[in-house]
């Protein structure tokens, strides 16, 4: 539960075509975008937000190499040192026969490792909760959260978002980290939203 409580100005957009220039202008004006929540993956948004390329694939490569060495090391130890068996008259160090298993363990290690790393990076786990800025971010709204510091004039940010084309603007004070448990009782459910 790291992060602490912070103040955010939240603007919701209903069109990608408005969102992109808004992101550009907000960044140009010097405001800090905390994150943008979209109902589906938007091509090029990460680039527009200036987020650095993920290192997930490097992690995947390392997991894969680990899998390869585990498989090869383990099998060569078993079949040549620990318990050498004569299998069909083949040499004890029977590399071709091990390749399929080596391949499988490479894929298994990299796949499982990458999924777990991804969950860790995104704070995804059973019972782990994070603050939702807008329930419709999973349905039909693009939600931009701008992080405020002590010096930020949130009235100015709100009018800026207004000009940028946001449909809905509000100020939220929210927990930035994750917590285990439940959402607050007063958290509005989507079915209670206007227009559901």
């Amino acid at each position, binding site marked *: 539960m790291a992060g602490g409580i912070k103040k955010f100005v939240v603007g919701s957009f209903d069109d990608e075509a408005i969102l992109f220039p808004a992101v550009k202008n907000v960044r140009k004006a010097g405001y800090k975008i905390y994150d943008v929540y979209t109902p589906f993956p938007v*091509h*090029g948004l990460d680039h527009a937000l200036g987020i650095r390329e993920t290192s997930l*694939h490097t992690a995947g*490569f390392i997991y894969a190499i680990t899998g390869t060495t585990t498989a090869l090391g383990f099998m060569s130890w078993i079949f040549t040192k620990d318990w050498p068996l004569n299998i*069909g*008259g083949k040499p004890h160090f029977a590399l*071709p*026969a091990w*390749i*399929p298993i080596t391949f499988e363990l490479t894929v298994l290690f990299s796949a499982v490792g990458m999924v777990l790393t991804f969950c860790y990076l995104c704070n995804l786990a059973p019972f782990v909760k994070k603050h939702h800025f807008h329930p419709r971010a999973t349905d039909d709204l693009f939600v931009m959260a701008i992080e405020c510091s002590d010096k930020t004039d949130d009235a100015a940010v709100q009018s800026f978002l207004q000009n940028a084309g946001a449909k809905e603007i509000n100020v939220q004070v929210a927990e930035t980290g994750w917590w285990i448990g439940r959402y607050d009782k007063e958290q509005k459910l989507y079915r209670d939203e206007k227009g559901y």
Partner: protein
Amino acid sequence: MEHRFEIPASYKKWTMGLIIAGVIALVYGIFKFDPFAAVSHGAHGTAHSADGTRFWAVLLQNSTYWLLLVNASMFFICVTTMAHGGWQVAFRRIPEAISSAVPVLGIITFVILLALVFGHRTDIYHWLDKDAVAQDKLLKGKSGFLNPAFFLICSGVSIFLWWALGKKMRTLSLNTDESPMDYDQSKKWIWKNTVWASLFTVVFGLTVASTIPWLWLMSIDPHWYSTMYSWYTFASTFVSGMALIAIIVIYLKNQHKLPYVTDEHIHDIGKFMFAFSVFWTYLWFAQYMLIWYSNQPEETKYFIDRIGTATEPGAYKGIFFFNLIVNFLCPLLILMKKSTKRNYTVVIFMAVLIIFGHWIDFYQMVMPGTVREHAEMMPFEFGIAALFIGVIMWCVGRYLGRHSLLAKNHPYLKESMIHHT
């Protein structure tokens, strides 16, 4: 003007240079190796000079390799069409141009096959020897398809179908340049294009991906068989076909053509080169491991001819493993990163390496069964390869020079322009 390609003088110079070098090599081979020498038939089979065998083996290797390579680019167009892919439209004219070399190389290949069959080259195709077949249980069993008539008819029909269906696909694409299409016309065109693409794909599957490699290449070792062989050959030529597309696309980008082809497209072509290198390795390994595991003498002979045994290394051991390094390890490690697939220099380098690597692959498919341990890798071998490269360059340049580089009325062009990986 950016969609028009005026063939630069340097391109013409290279094309002519390669063709002239190739013709010199060919003429040298004809005089030096005496490939048309009469074949003497004795009671103990037939005798051939090693030089004559080398001449025909090199021609067979190069003609089949380069023909299947250029044909693979039409397969690329057809499968992406059938998958309703849009991303390839921006550079679609390049695989079309490459596939326009199919008729020329097809005729060359067919003439070489005719010469092999009617020249009775039993040193290349052992099954041409009627006396040997009569005494051989295995060859007798295969004589239903390993006989001159079936061999030539099947080859001829296959080459004709690649030609005719490829021509139809190219004509359909060029027809769109005449006038813009409205919604209904586009829909009709897409349907027609998809139907012809699927016809080509079916023919391709029945020929390149199954029967043709059996006839042209696997029958060099007529006692041996492998169900992986055709797929292996297909993977080999498809990945080199993608490499050739990459080379020409990047060449045109460097000539400031193809304004709608971005790094995203190069990245996807690079992915194809990466993925099919791995696919090739999968088939290479599957073929090797099954034979290694079951250890049947009639199957292991193929590999003993190449890598030899534990005590006696074979003449092709070096080439055999070099093949694996160039075609698997290099693409796997170098093309794995995103940034390398977007770097023109690296992609060009890898594409040349892959084309060379699979040329070597075909070399070790053809040579051990024909010239045995007398294989050479001398200017003659490279000269014949230069001849085929020159012919391909000539066909590609001719097609690109005559037609617009952009299929400007293709209904999926917009999709290709905004392509993002």
